[in-house]
């Protein structure tokens, strides 16, 4: 949070008088690569997954594909195998390694499981439940003296259940890459109105797509843990964080995405 600002300040104060960074040789122990899965099931979209593997930190930055990985998703007693066919989509591109021809059809409460295996005997499993959509209750914006607007959106949390949310804002269209990408739990606001907000970055005439995802704890924990792990690399005050994957047997996430989405024009 704002501790980062402090760190920037410290960096300026203490590091400005010296050449800070030196590249050093660092020997790392051998790493046994593990399967890494990313699979987000979304209503009306094809079943697609990305299966890669982890690498030693100093390995070449090429995508470590796993061509012999087999991906099976089960739902309502039916198993569907996804075919290995690496494809990219969008610009910048998103890589998918496995896909099925079928689109996902969600019903709240539906339960999905996934299994990934490969020729080396590695196996990753996971499960995900379709949560009910939580509607965006209101969206407001407010201008500062310089004519920049901040946007806030609210939702009504359901009481007495642990809920987790993800909030995103895109400009113009959802393929443009999000400006805002936050997660939150209702721990401090159980059953009350929860607000997400932005800084003063928008201008009159901007078209924004506001997305509110109702996510499960596994999704929330994974998102937080990858953020913390990234933060720990380069922050002398941070302790290293273990990745809290939503799958067993490897790294990654298998989840469903239920979203309420609204388009606004800042006026």
């Amino acid at each position, binding site marked *: 949070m704002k501790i980062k600002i402090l760190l920037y300040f410290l960096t300026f104060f203490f590091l400005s008088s010296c050449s800070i960074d030196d590249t050093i040789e660092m020997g790392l122990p051998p790493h046994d690569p593990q399967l890494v899965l990313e699979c987000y099931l979304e209503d009306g979209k094809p079943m697609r997954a990305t299966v890669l593997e982890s690498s030693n930190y100093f390995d070449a930055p090429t995508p470590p594909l796993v061509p012999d990985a087999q991906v099976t998703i089960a739902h309502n007693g039916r198993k569907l195998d996804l075919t290995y066919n690496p494809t990219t*989509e969008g610009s910048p591109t*998103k890589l998918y390694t496995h896909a099925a021809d079928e689109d996902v059809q969600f019903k709240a409460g539906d339960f999905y499981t996934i299994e990934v295996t490969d020729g080396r005997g590695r196996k990753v499993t996971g499960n995900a439940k379709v949560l009910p959509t939580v509607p965006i209750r209101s969206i407001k914006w407010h201008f500062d003296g310089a004519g920049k607007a901040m946007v806030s959106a609210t939702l009504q949390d359901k009481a007495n259940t642990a809920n987790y949310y993800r909030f995103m804002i895109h400009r113009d269209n959802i393929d443009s890459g999000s400006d805002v990408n936050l997660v939150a739990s209702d721990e401090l606001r159980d059953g009350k109105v929860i607000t997400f907000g932005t800084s003063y970055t928008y201008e009159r005439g901007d078209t924004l797509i506001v997305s509110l995802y109702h996510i499960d704890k596994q999704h929330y924990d994974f998102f937080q843990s990858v953020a913390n792990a*990234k933060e720990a690399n380069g922050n002398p005050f941070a302790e290293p964080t273990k990745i809290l994957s939503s799958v067993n047997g490897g790294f990654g996430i298998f989840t469903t995405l239920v979203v309420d989405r609204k388009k606004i024009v800042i006026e």
Partner: protein
Amino acid sequence: MRFFFLLFTFILLLNNISPALAQGTATVSGFVRSADTNEALAGATVAVPTLNIGTFTDAKGFYSFNLPKGNHTIQASYIGFESGSKDITVTGDKLTLNFTLETNSSQLQEVVVEANTLQQKLNDTRMSVERLSTVEAKLLPALFGEVDLVKTLQLKPGVQSGGEGASGLYVRGGGPDQNLVMLDDAVVYNASHLFGFFSVFNPDAVKSVELYKGGFPAQYGGRLSSVLEVDMNKGNYDSLSATGGIGLISSRLTFEGPIVKDKASFLISGRRTYFDIFTRQLNRINEGNKDYNPIPDYYFYDLNTKIYYKLGEKDELSLTGYYGRDFFGFNDSNFSFGFDWGNSIGSLVWSHKFSNRFFASTSLTSTGYRYNVTNSISDFTFKLTSSIQDFTLKTDFDLLLSKGHNLKFGALATKHAFTIGQFNFDAGDNQDMSFNSGNNYKATEFGAYVSDDFRVNPLLSVNYGLRLSAFDSGDKTYTALEPRAAAKYSLSQTMSLKASYASMMQYIHLVSSSGASLPTDVWYPSTSYVKPQRSQQVAAGVSKLFANGKLLFTNEVYYKWMKRQIDFRDGANLFVNDSLENEFLFGEGESYGNEIYLEKIKGRTTGWLGYTLSWSYRQFDEINDGRRFPTRYDRRHDISLVVLHQLSKRISLTGAFVYGTGNAYSLPVARFAFQDVEGRNTSVIPIYSDRNSFRLAAYHRLDLGLVLKLRPKHGEADLTFNLYNTYNRRNPYFVYFSQIESEADDLTLGFEAKQVSLFPSIPSITYNFKF
């Protein structure tokens, strides 16, 4: 309390102590004071060298011991003062003998004390104690020229810093939360400014510090690993004087003088940094420059005050105050961020002498630490506050009995009030969005102790005691007995063996995610779920005087067990969390090592050489898959060499060299690519292996200093030149892995390890004055 009195009675009976003095001995007692300021000198040596009998003065400058009747020469000595010597004839049962010691004319000589001080150190039952005076610290080279007693203590064996430039203390494998830091009897909860780069102790206001690393006397409790006692100057009650210094990043000014001549004195001392003045100017110059990122404001200040009043021959009263704040702020047209933190301390101490053999000190102290974070964006404001506030009533008695017994006993009660993660979000007109969180706790801590310093015979002396501690958090009460023992056996006039045992309890815990001293660290009480920490430490050592008493060699080994150590779950939210206890993890710790210390404190060249070989581990079921791991400050080898040389009456040279095994550190061993829902910005996610399984490169540094005494028309002045990190060693502060990117298209070409170093060779100059 009933237990305490029973115990006290039991010990008296056990030793068959008669109130009458043994035939042929008398009690000699009195105060040792500075001739310049009439200030009591705590820790001064008072001894009869021919009989090898002596003692140290207590915090009030008071001493007392028994002597055979007859003619004797008694000497009193203290660092920075000329020794005093008196010939006496003891005929009656008691004799009062006060010493007033003159300040040494040469600054370097101020650290020179007579050889009998080393002899007394050899003969002292206590072990694992380090004492340092401000005079000594002011001579040594310092980062940015900022003299810091706590950092100077890091040069002693068994004491480590957390990292480059840090003022935290890691004592014998203990964490920075396990140090009991006291300023004139009041606890200091966060003893550092600016993320631990400077300690809160202004050297002009502080007289001396004393650090116990083990063998803790029974009067101390509440922390596992060390006790740091900081004594403030009382002020000059003879004449008005001013002391100050102008340095690179801060200046300080102290006034002291009499309120009622020879009876009452005052001291007021302030210090402030001024780099915010430069950064504001820089921001102003760059106003309108779109490529310029304004630098946030940062400054710290502290203010020390003390009033001392001598009520009569038997009573003294002193009132101490400390207030310090760090402030960090950043503002722009729609954003206002403020972060301030600091301690506020008050201490009222009444000392009373019942007789030459019975002395008491009672104090009422208030101490608090608080941090506030505020952030305002348009109508929205959030505020995060955590604090601890204590009120303590404490009384200590010192009773000199016959047959070589010196009894100390006392009790204390502390009321704690904790505010933990008090978060307030105010949404202005949108009140349905506003909310609060956080917890408040109240608790009471008690302690009662009795100890006996017993000189069994000229060769053997023992100090044994028992502390009863208790903690009531409202939902749970804990009690514990903490036995303490120390013994010294003289093999010869120049060699002694020592051993000690100490059991310690710690009822309040620091919630810190970093292991460093951050202002956002908050204290948390023991509750029914969070049980108190406990440690046991054994130590044994040998001391030997060489070169006609000019050199003292000490070797100590220690082993410390620590139960119910605290850490936190991965990714724990320690700031805004109503269920903070759920983030706690409990484990065990152990540390052990060997400390070698060779010191020379007489002659034109003085100094010390210390070497520590040590190990420090923790084990938590939920961390590292239950395997034990080294602490970040686990340091296999640690060497410090300090040399002070008086070149002439006006010039002294100093040098300090340190070497330490690199800190244990966690680094990722592998990575994976994370595309996330959108896949627009693929991230590299590090995968960490065992905690602290890597070592940073070794740390070593040479600092040089020169003190040039000037000849001003009025008063005294000197210029202090320092060269920190003389040979510009790039010591590692931390290591991280980064991506090598193509300049043309930002594509990742590979990965590399980067080491960040903080301080290169830094020269500094400080002007100090006194008039």
